[in-house]
């Protein structure tokens, strides 16, 4: 009697399995059809709100909390960059515009800087943001000599002025897979990706992402009470020592996309 019951149970299970299989063939839809392609889904994307990726890094391992990562921002010839300076008595509240912006940024904070003197769009100002999401580990006495180099080109600005948004992910090349070519400001060509790809995921394949730059056409609000929101709470930053001297020395080496 027990063997008959077991056989009946197995038959029922087989019929149910066949029914499910037939149902799946008839409907033609699989649950995986509604999932994103690829073997994995990243937790963090470059399209996440500013600060999400960097804040997630702070919960990871390593001495990243409280570290001021040196960053240098350059652009086409003539373009000037400046940072908000809350203690500055000038009416603009910004630092002196420089062709090479050098500062130490906290990891996880979002810094909005000003871009002026854009070629072909004089009088227009852009306010991109830079978010440092990881740090580098140079020797102690060379931390400012090897900052994270962020090179913005004219196409970025023109695209932003058309109302679109440009996202740049700066990554540290994997030494095992790096292109064996000397990188300098003129040969450091950005990698263009399609709209369907996540730049953070692509950068993660090529190396270790360290910074995200987002360029749009947002302008400062007219209400002063909204400025802290616009500048993401004025996070602290550290200037380079002897920044003025280095700026003068580096102005001749600033890459020019227009040349």
């Amino acid at each position: 009697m027990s063997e008959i019951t077991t056989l009946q149970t197995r038959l029922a299970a087989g019929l149910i399995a066949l029914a499910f299989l037939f149902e799946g063939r008839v409907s033609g839809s699989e649950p995986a059809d509604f999932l994103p392609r690829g073997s994995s889904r990243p937790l963090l994307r470059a399209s996440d709100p500013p600060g999400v990726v960097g804040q997630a890094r702070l919960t990871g391992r390593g001495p990243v909390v409280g570290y001021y990562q040196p960053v240098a921002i350059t652009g086409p010839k003539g373009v000037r960059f400046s940072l908000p300076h809350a203690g500055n008595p000038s009416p603009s509240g910004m630092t002196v515009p420089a062709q090479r912006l050098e500062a130490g940024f906290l990891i996880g904070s979002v810094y909005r800087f000003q871009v002026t003197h854009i070629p072909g769009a004089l009088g227009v100002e852009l306010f991109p943001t830079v978010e440092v999401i990881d740090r580098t580990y140079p020797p102690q006495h060379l931390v400012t000599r090897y900052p994270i180099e962020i090179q913005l080109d004219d196409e970025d600005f023109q695209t932003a002025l058309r109302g679109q948004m440009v996202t740049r992910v700066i990554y540290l090349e994997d030494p095992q897979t790096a292109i064996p070519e000397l990188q300098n400001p003129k040969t450091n060509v950005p990698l263009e990706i399609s709209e369907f790809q996540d730049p953070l995921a692509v950068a993660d394949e090529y190396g270790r992402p360290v910074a995200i730059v987002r360029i749009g056409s947002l302008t400062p609000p007219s209400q002063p009470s909204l400025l802290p929101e616009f500048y993401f709470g004025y996070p602290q930053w550290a200037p380079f020592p002897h920044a003025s001297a280095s700026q003068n020395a580096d102005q001749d080496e600033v890459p020019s996309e227009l040349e």
Partner: protein
Amino acid sequence: MKRIVTHLSLVATSAILATGCVPVRHNLPPEQRMMEVGPGVGGPGPGVLGGMSAPSAADLAAAAAPEAMPIAQSDTVQGSVSDGEIGLVNYMHPGAPSDSPAAAIAAPPTLQVSFRNPDGMQVRYDATGNGGFDSEPLIAPARQNFPQGGLYRVKLTNIPNREGVELYPTVELAYANPRTGAYLAHNSVPVEFTEEDFDQVLTGNFVTKVIYLPDPEFQGPALAGIDTLVSTRLDPGVDPIVEADRRGSILAIIRLGDKDVEMSGAGADSLASMMTAPIPGLPAPYAPAMTDGCGHCQTGAPSGAPMATQYGMTMSATPIGIPGPPHLPLGQPAGLQKHVMRNHTAVKMPRPSEKIRIDVRNQPGYRYPATADRIRITSQNLNP
């Protein structure tokens, strides 16, 4: 016999050398160690007088460069200014907001709306909350920040080629969400009106424009950025709001008709503003938006505050931490009655120790000179 004597003398000599007929060295622990009771325990040890401890590196740095103002004391931060290092100077004055987004951002989250086309068109909004259009006119192209999650009624005047025409569209702005937060933090929401829109409205039609941020699968290379769906360009029966919600995340909904809301008898409720401007100068919403959102999403701080539950949305969170899907059809009881979550994590936690025995041995050990147990005093007087 001579060999035996020789061997015995050698053994005796080596024994004497091994047992300590050498200069005695009194080995004391370092002074810093003697200042503490034991490993991991601070304070002076028993019977030890306080001594002068060596100054720490931070004290030396402060003494060497008193003008420097290090803002952190961790090892990851360089406290001194030298060539090749970052001088950590706090550039914020004491009254300035800190780097904490929660402390710095007290204003409501806003998004920027840019009125682009047609050029020269004037836009007014309610700036005081009294229901009128008492703001300074914005002349397109112009920009203005609006609080998120509000329904705003604006007044369009001076429309080119349409003298005397005044329209009162409503602009419903959605909250920022993790999908749109990065875009809204860097770009404005463009509000444009075309000649076709005005023609449709002036002929009695109702125009609904939905501005949305397409998902990557609906975003072609030629459509990088945002897209707009207009009700008059869709097939009959297609709701532009539903279609835009299917394609991406809605940023704004513009509804344009020919109703003159300032006409006497148009209805007092049409002009009565339900909300006041959160900050003087900001537009006052006509009504809250019908979209759900989380206030400071654009700053990136994951908000742990409970969100207001929208009609038809689940009140309980799913195991992945986001609100569950709406129950369709809306208004019906929740379809999900129960969900079981099993924890298969291998847990092997040792029991806490009830007794710990610590054997401590310092190498080399301590050796003090033998204390005096016998005193001999010899007094001699040469000249009594």
